[in-house]
């Protein structure tokens, strides 16, 4: 295995590990769920992508057969990460009603702002005709534990 390939694989591994650590640190540290979504969904995808690219370079460079597993994992993670983040945010929003988490650092108010076109946000519009409506959340002062 040549020195250039080794340095490239090592750099990608360090980059990927650092991104994964930063993403999970943001998950543990940020104040509310909507801000916590940012860390894992961006940084972790980059981090796993870095590790997988390092693996895709390492195996052909060290003389082993190339396999499609890394490419499949990369494509699958890049496809599913935004969908699962969107589902988590939607479930959180419907459980909270129109009250989002207050974020004291940014001065974000306690309630969801109205959309500029009037009416209600699109994610709440199907709720009236919904046969299984989302359970109503407690008043916004109390946080369910």
């Amino acid at each position, binding site marked *: 295995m040549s020195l250039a390939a080794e340095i490239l694989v090592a750099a990608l591994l360090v980059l990927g*590990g650092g991104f994964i650590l930063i*993403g*999970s640190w943001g998950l543990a540290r940020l104040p509310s769920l909507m801000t916590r979504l940012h860390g894992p969904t961006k940084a*972790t995808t980059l981090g796993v992508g870095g590790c997988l690219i390092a693996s895709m370079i390492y195996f052909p460079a060290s003389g082993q057969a190339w396999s499609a597993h890394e490419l499949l994992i990369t494509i699958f993670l890049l496809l599913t990460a935004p969908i699962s983040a969107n589902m988590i945010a939607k*479930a959180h929003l419907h459980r909270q009603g129109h009250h989002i988490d207050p974020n004291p650092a940014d001065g974000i108010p306690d309630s969801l702002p109205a959309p500029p076109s009037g009416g209600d946000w699109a994610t709440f519009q199907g709720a009236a005709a919904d046969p299984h409506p989302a359970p109503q959340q407690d008043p916004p002062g109390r946080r369910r534990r």
Partner: protein
Amino acid sequence: MTGAILSWALAFALACVSLAILLSLFRLVRGPTSGDRILAVDTLTINVIALIVVFGVAEATQTYFEAALLLAMVAFVATVAYCKFLLRGDIVE
């Protein structure tokens, strides 16, 4: 046989991913809402995928990559199913 640079980088990446798993476990235990726990489990499985990939490079084997692929699929289905359960109170309608 891996060289000195690569073995150092592998040790660094393994330490980072292990620390990331501990941090997401902290968020899983702490909560406070169930959305936080879903997000923590999702992050935890992605970290485990990264751990499997780095371990595969460290061991110079491709045996474990199928486990990582299966874990990615199961984690996505589990996240979506749990979110559907929170939204509707029902999964199979």
